[in-house]
């Protein structure tokens, strides 16, 4: 008999009140009571001791619901979906004396009184739930009474055990059938398919040949493992393949080569320690520590379940940090979202029957923000650094970037902290959460475009607390005892990837799959092996250390299990209850994928340069520019992300008394060191409409320039590249890619800022149907996110964007050119133009070096690296940040007024300098032809641009903060 416990929150509960407010805005006057519901089949769930442990007697009541309401709306999870509250409830039941294998489930009930009709309540339900992962029950007050309340639902997973064996797969079939297997998956007995392997015919033929050579049929688990290992997501085949005449491919030929050349050129000043070989990149922080960085994307899952996709992304990249070297401590999170306008409601469907609609931009925006909030905040990692960029082509597939910076001792147990190696004979130990069906085919799925066949099982929800327990146990205790020889995380591909990759160090593995702890019985072996259930780390543990390690984890409430042994027989081998179900050559598994040479074409985009009339009201136009989504304040995100946990925040996400949303942050990750970590990024997706080379160069330049402006020396700076491309099977898109890669090679080498880590996501396309059921394909603009990480010797060198004192002199450093192509100003007028900003890395390098000297001498009071919206927007942001006036004269810039104001030429920094430092500052830049004194910080409350505009700062402030204020 199942027990249902309903805990009623007080009428003034914040969750209910906020919902009431939101409905009021839509003209609905309602009152809402929130009820937290806990359900369990366990006999002890009825006990008072347990029930009272769920109720706060000061404000809550158990099983005593009010009678007077019009609607009851309950939202719970579907079977198998991660239920974190349910998980904690199970632990409370255990504390109350139950065994530890009890299952509890949570749901939330809203009792609503007010004038809502059926449609209203359905709309409300839709805004509060996601039917992909949640179930909804709705009853009228009368139905509720008649039924005696809501039903007790136990969303337990029931799998038939039929699947619990490994099946043979016949590959001696036609090429057509091979293609179907590659695209849609292995056939089940009933003819249905198991979901995409994401393998081309060429790949399938290679697999067929291999098993012909082995003289036996392939097992399903073998095919699934190959598919994971060879997937674009894991193998980065597009960056690795020969492309045109670049035989070694884009990654080795450009990105890795840039780093190699820079490191050689810098010699003993090289800051890199671990690049491209581990879960993150690592550079020197100080004599004691390395600092690591990794940025990931989680785009496809976030399109289907924004919250689950984003939280899984952030806790996933945290594990990349924990899995760096012998284990790094996560000290900072980054986020970044590319989204469609949340104020619009475009109509798109996944299927031609128009039954499954694409989530609204607002739902996606709120979901991904909440996901990073829950994951980052609950993990106790500050999230000071991020961005949001809007373009309506992100409607079907948003880009969700998540990154984690780690701190790791340079030496651990007498060995370099960044080194590790699994040895033959070491036991394979997996620690953390259990394995369920979640995330099956995540790796292969993210390597293809989203369409109606996109599998719901690809969605999962992270469990930050399970991970926090595991992370603390590893980073704060076990690591320093030297009990494991290697560690890595379980991400895409689950154990098939983590164990497979670590086994490359020893030369093989033997897994006994029945030893893997499962969330529920009945999973097929291949599902267990490739499941992407979260919060797990895989370790290589010498046999004599196993007992101690497992006991230590247990003491911290973390399950750790031996699942096999690393070997050196060059075989990838799995047994299941004694039967061999996988036995392949390691070589074939890792390097057997046939080369696929790529061909490219390239056509520059762009339209004719428009000739726009001067705005009638310049101040109003500036206000409109400030209110554009790519420019306006995102303060509502910063205040819900804990950005000062760990006590390390120096320069936060909101700067100056006027709280301007900043692009650069500074953190002091080691409490006892004076040094700071500077983080920033740059990206300009729209520039790709004209030239992906200009797009990529501008992104790298901004990532570097932001950090330099904040006080980092160029030689203390490293970069990360994240390519989010679209339709990467088309020569033209590949041509755009090649051009972007060439551009960042050139600029990185020029600046001597090495790439230390990168990731790509190559198919950000949405294939679906519009409101007329017409087939559409919407491709995200090709986007390079460049992220920068640097170290400053003392945080007192930090330079923020807000001017500090009236009377300070304003200088513009760098050249303003006629470059409004793809700019915010042209977009405001619905135009694209042609003159996209071209980055002059030679000129910029001169400036950044001179600037570095000035910042070392503390001559600069404030600095802002110009980007979206150009100079006028930068001036306005400075005025808003400081809440001080400005008197500016742009007549020295040899361009028309609008071009001078809104050109997005790269390589420019707007600074303020105190009068006492003016002479020294000018001397510092003597001989640099692009140092312009353009005015001063003034008394009063206006931004005054001579002969152009006089704008009230209060009005600018409102224009800047209003658009996203109420989200």
């Amino acid at each position, binding site marked *: 008999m199942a027990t249902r416990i309903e805990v009623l929150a007080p009428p003034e509960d914040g969750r209910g009140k906020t919902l009431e407010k939101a409905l009021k805005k839509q003209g609905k006057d309602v009152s809402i009571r929130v009820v937290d519901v806990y359900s369990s089949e366990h006999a002890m769930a009825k006990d008072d001791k347990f029930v009272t442990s769920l109720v706060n007697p000061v404000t809550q009541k158990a099983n005593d619901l009010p009678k007077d309401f019009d609607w009851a709306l309950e939202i719970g999870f579907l079977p198998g979906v991660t239920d974190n509250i349910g998980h904690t409830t199970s632990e409370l039941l255990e504390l109350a004396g139950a065994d530890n294998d009890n299952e509890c489930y949570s749901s939330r009930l809203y009792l609503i009184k007010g004038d809502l009709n059926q449609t209203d309540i359905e709309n409300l339900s839709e805004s509060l739930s996601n039917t992909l992962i949640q179930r909804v029950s709705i009853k009228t007050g009368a139905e509720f009474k008649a039924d005696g309340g809501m039903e007790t639902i136990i969303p337990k997973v029931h799998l038939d055990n039929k699947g619990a064996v490994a099946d043979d797969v016949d590959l001696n079939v036609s090429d057509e059938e091979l293609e179907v297997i590659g695209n849609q998956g292995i056939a089940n007995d009933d003819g249905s398919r198991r979901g995409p392997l994401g393998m081309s015919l060429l790949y399938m033929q290679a697999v067929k040949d291999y098993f012909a050579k082995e003289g036996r049929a392939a097992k399903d688990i073998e095919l699934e493992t190959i598919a994971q290992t060879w997937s674009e997501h894991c193998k980065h085949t597009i960056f690795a393949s020969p492309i045109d005449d670049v035989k070694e491919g884009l990654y080795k030929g450009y990105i890795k080569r840039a780093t190699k050349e820079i490191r050689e050129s810098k010699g003993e000043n090289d800051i890199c320690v671990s690049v491209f070989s581990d879960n993150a990149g690592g550079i020197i922080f100080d004599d004691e520590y390395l600092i690591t960085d990794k940025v990931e994307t989680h785009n496809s899952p976030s399109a289907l379940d924004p919250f689950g996709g984003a939280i899984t992304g952030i806790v996933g990249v945290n594990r990349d940090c924990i899995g760096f070297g012998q284990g790094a401590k996560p000290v900072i999170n980054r986020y970044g979202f590319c989204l469609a306008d949340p104020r619009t409601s475009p109509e798109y469907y996944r299927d031609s029957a128009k039954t499954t609609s694409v989530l609204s931009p607002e739902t996606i925006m709120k979901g991904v923000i909440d996901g990073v909030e829950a994951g980052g905040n609950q993990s106790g990692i500050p999230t000071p650094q991020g961005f949001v960029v809007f373009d309506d082509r992100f409607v079907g597939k948003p880009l969700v970037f998540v990154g984690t910076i780690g701190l790791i001792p340079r030496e651990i147990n007498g060995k370099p902290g960044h080194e590790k190696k699994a040895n033959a004979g070491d036991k394979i130990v997996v620690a953390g959460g259990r394995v369920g069906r979640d995330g099956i085919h995540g790796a292969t799925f993210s390597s293809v475009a989203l369409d109606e066949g996109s599998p719901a099982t690809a969605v999962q929800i992270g469990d930050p607390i399970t991970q926090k327990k595991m992370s603390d146990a590893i980073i704060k205790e076990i690591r320093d005892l030297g009990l494991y020889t290697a560690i890595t995380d379980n991400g895409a591909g689950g154990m098939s990837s983590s164990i497979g990759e670590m086994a490359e160090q020893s030369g093989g593995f033997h897994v006994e799959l029945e030893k893997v702890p499962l969330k529920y019985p009945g999973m097929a072996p291949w599902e267990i092996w490739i499941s992407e259930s979260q919060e797990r780390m895989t370790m290589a543990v010498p046999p004599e250390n196993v007992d101690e390690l497992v006991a230590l984890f247990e003491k911290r409430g973390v399950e750790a299990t031996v699942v096999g042994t690393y070997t050196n027989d060059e075989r990838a081998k799995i047994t299941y209850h004694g039967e061999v179900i996988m036995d392949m050559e390691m070589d074939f598994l890792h390097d057997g994928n046939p080369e696929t040479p790529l061909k490219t074409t390239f056509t520059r985009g762009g339209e004719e340069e428009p000739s726009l009339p001067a705005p009638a009201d310049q101040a109003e136009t500036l206000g409109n520019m400030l209110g554009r989504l790519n420019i306006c304040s995102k303060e509502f995100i910063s205040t819900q992300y804990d950005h000062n*946990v760990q006590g390390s925040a120096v320069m936060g996400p909101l700067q100056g008394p006027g709280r301007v949303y900043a692009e650069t942050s500074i953190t002091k990750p080691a*409490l006892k060191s004076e040094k700071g970590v500077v983080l920033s990024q740059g990206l300009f997706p729209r520039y790709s409409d004209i030239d992906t080379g200009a797009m990529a160069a501008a992104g790298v330049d901004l990532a570097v320039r932001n950090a330099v402006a904040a006080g980092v020396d160029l030689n203390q700076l490293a970069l990360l590249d994240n390519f989010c491309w679209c339709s990467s099977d088309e020569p033209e898109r590949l041509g755009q890619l090649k051009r972007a890669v060439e551009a960042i090679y050139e600029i990185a080498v020029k600046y001597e800022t090495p790439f230390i880590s990168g990731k790509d996501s190559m198919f950000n396309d949405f294939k679906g149907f519009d409101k007329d059921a017409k087939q559409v394909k919407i491709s995200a603009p090709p986007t390079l996110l460049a992220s920068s990480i640097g170290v400053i010797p003392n945080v007192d060198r930090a330079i923020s964007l807000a001017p500090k004192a009236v009377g300070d002199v304003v200088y513009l450093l760098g050249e303003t050119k006629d470059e409004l192509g793809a700019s915010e100003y042209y977009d405001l007028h619905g135009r694209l133009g042609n003159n996209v900003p071209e980055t002059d890395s030679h000129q910029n390098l001169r400036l950044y070096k001179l600037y570095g000297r000035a910042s070392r001498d503390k001559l600069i009071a404030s600095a802002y690296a110009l980007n979206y919206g150009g100079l006028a927007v930068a001036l306005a942001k400075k005025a808003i940040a400081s809440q001080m006036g400005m008197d500016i004269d742009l007549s020295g810039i040899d361009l028309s007024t609008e071009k001078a104001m809104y050109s997005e030429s790269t390589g420019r920094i707007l600074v303020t300098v105190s009068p006492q430092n003016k002479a020294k500052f000018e001397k510092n830049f003597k001989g640099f032809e692009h140092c312009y004194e353009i005015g001063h910080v003034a008394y009063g409350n206006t931004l005054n641009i001579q002969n152009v505009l006089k704008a009230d700062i209060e009005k600018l402030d409102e224009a800047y903060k209003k658009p996203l204020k109420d989200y």
Partner: protein
Amino acid sequence: MTANAIVLAGYGLNCEEETLHAFEYAGLKGKIRHINDVIENPSELDNAQVLAIPGGFSYGDDTGAGNAYAQKMKLALWDKLQEFVARDTLTIGICNGCQITANLGLVPAFDKNYGERLVAVTHNLTARYQCRWIDLKVTSNSPWMDGIESMHIPVAHGEGRFMMNEDTFTKLKENGQVAAIYTKDGEAAGGEFPYNPNGSIGDIAGITDETGRVLTLMPHPERGMFTWQRDDYMEAKDKAQREGKNLPETADGILLFQNAARYFEVAQKKSA
């Protein structure tokens, strides 16, 4: 002998390192202890003079912030905790620790009735996590607050709203057990967001037991203990440079921890 502080950890608490750093900087000795280790060896509390339950997200705030961790402590450690607060010791709960302390009933503990839950620290009125700097006015004679009038430190919580019945509220005020309130321009914020970031009754940011030795506080003093941590650091640093002055190293938050150190120094001198 320097006083010993135990800073708890585990199950999602996450501010233990910076909290320990604050105590050590103030001159106390301290160590971080996982709750399971303290449960296994409760006599550790006998040798400690300060118990700190730091901020964090124990059990993910599921079933109410601080509830599950408090349940765990109550079941396994309650007798030891009662003994501890009955001695001449200091206890502080910060943020998640504040929620845990309130759920344990270590505050307000009228008439020494430790264990009775009389205040709830629950969902912010905005139903949203708030990470921002706030101003506090100190309204108590707690040894933790000795000599402090106001503080500029941050909050970071999703459930920081003190709720209680009218009786409890009146009694807290009458007894001087309200430790600090949120202010705007030096006066009580009157519930106005964001000065009062969570809608707390009477703008309450923290309360104490009757002795003042047990303090529970939603804002984070350990995130505002050094000048470089402050939200106005960039402005202050620039001003100091112009005036040719040095900035003080410490900020408001450290005072609480220094008070703890001083409390035991004075006690020691008295007994000597």
